[in-house]
């Protein structure tokens, strides 16, 4: 479904990524894990068109999309839920969600999607007219995730959905991710520092370090890998 080949990208004079390659299958949940500064976010930002790769290429459903503008990428169903959420703080939850569906040609799909995401996060129903900036961190993450879903994604990319959240909220977010992946069959690409959590819901995983992929394989296998255990799981 998504195929990234030999991707090199960076900011200013420095390259953050050097030759990253990986792929995801339709309906699969793939985790991209690694420590702080490994380059995981840069991978997602390059795929989403927020930064232009220096070299390498990105294919989505057989089409090359390297260097496309971000709005074109959203339109073909490749949607990012960004790190730090990037909500519109002075707008209401409803407005944030409606903006999530900006790419939809058919306006008629919005009510249907809205009902779906509010069913996933009943809490947002109570907060629907509140401005996003006044919500708690966990609720804001829910809005970010719901906003991403409003774009009717084929592949949803999540950048650190558990970062800075209380354990109870993390569990709630992951319950929804599991439902999306298993029940709805949505393809997920999950970037996490929370390695155990990410590998527990994904079928395959890639481990990044210093802008490279150093390990890959079935998630269950990676969880048993001595190097992973030592570096990320503290065992």
């Amino acid at each position, binding site marked *: 479904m998504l195929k990234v080949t030999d991707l090199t990208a960076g900011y200013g004079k420095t390259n953050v990524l050097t030759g990253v390659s990986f792929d995801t299958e339709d309906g699969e949940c793939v985790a991209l894990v690694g420590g702080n500064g490994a380059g995981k976010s840069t991978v997602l930002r390059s795929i*989403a*068109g*927020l930064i232009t790769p220096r070299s390498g290429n990105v294919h989505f459903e057989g089409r090359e999309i390297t260097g496309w*503008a*971000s*709005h074109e*990428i*959203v*339109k073909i169903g490749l*949607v*990012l*839920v*960004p790190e730090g*959420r*990037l*909500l*519109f*703080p*002075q*707008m209401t939850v409803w*407005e944030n969600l*409606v*903006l*999530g569906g*900006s*790419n939809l040609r058919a306006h008629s799909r919005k009510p249907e999607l809205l009902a779906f995401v509010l069913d996933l996060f009943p809490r947002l129903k109570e907060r629907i007219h509140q401005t996003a900036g006044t919500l708690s961190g966990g609720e804001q993450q829910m809005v970010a995730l719901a*906003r*991403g879903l409003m*774009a009717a994604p084929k592949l949803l990319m999540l950048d650190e959905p558990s970062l800075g959240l209380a354990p109870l909220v993390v569990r709630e977010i992951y319950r929804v991710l599991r439902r999306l992946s298993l029940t709805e069959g949505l393809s997920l690409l999950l970037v996490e520092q929370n390695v155990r959590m990410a590998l527990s819901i994904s079928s395959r995983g890639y481990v990044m370090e210093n802008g490279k992929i150093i390990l890959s394989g079935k998630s269950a296998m990676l969880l048993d890998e001595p190097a992973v255990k030592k570096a990320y799981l503290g065992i």
Partner: protein
Amino acid sequence: MALTEMVVLIQALVQGIMVGVMYGLMGLGITMVFAITRLLNFSHGDFMALAMYVCLLLYQQLGLDPYASSGLVAALFVPMGGLVFALLFKRVLRAHILMVIQLTLGLVFIIENGLLLGFGADYRSIPTVLTAKKVHIGPLILRAPHLAAFVIGSALALALFWTLKYTDLGRAIRAISQNVEGAKVVGLNVERVQLIVFSGAIGLLGLVGPLLVPMITMTPFMGLHLTLFSFIVFVMGGVGNFLGTMLAGLVLGIAESLGQLYIGGNLGLVVPYGVFVLVLLVRPAGLLGAKQ
């Protein structure tokens, strides 16, 4: 307070509000462009001057009244704004602020000297159907050009705020002003919205300029002064705050009107600027600006 004094005061207030709506719209152009591009357009007022001289041209050549030509000028200014954005502003979107100042000041020189070349340095005014007319409402006597500017300007402002609040375009504009990257992530075509807003802001000047014709004596060099005043409205309202900008326009209009009434002369003209300084002393982020 005697009754006549009361009437004079109310009349000054009403006049201030009527002119203030125009000031608000001038500032709103700057606010809207800044909100979604983070660019300051120093040639803002010169585009307004240009609009007024286009009115002069239309009057000289075709005998058109500025009120009749206002719609035409606006319709002309929208695509012109689009061109200016696509050819010039787009290139400095990510450039250093000094580049932006250089570009827009360059436009100031081009427009001002172009007007000088075409129309000479003389002070000009254009007669309009409303110039000398007055409207009596109860004990109040209102000048017709001010009333017309107020009615059209208010309708325009309401339409703008309605668009911002309730339409897809309006939501997109607010989203971009609050978080550009977030706007990209949800799939908004940021550059297209920037183009639309810039064209709209220039088009707005194309409409506001002609409405001000009966109130202002024109010179080719008035643009920079209009820009300065627009910037004051923009800052006083709270940088990037749409409603604050409109409010600041009203406050400045009233301050000007009361300054003329109670102080008069050159000192009276200083009153709006004094009010601006006072507002910033009390509320450094502007009338409705967010606290830092």
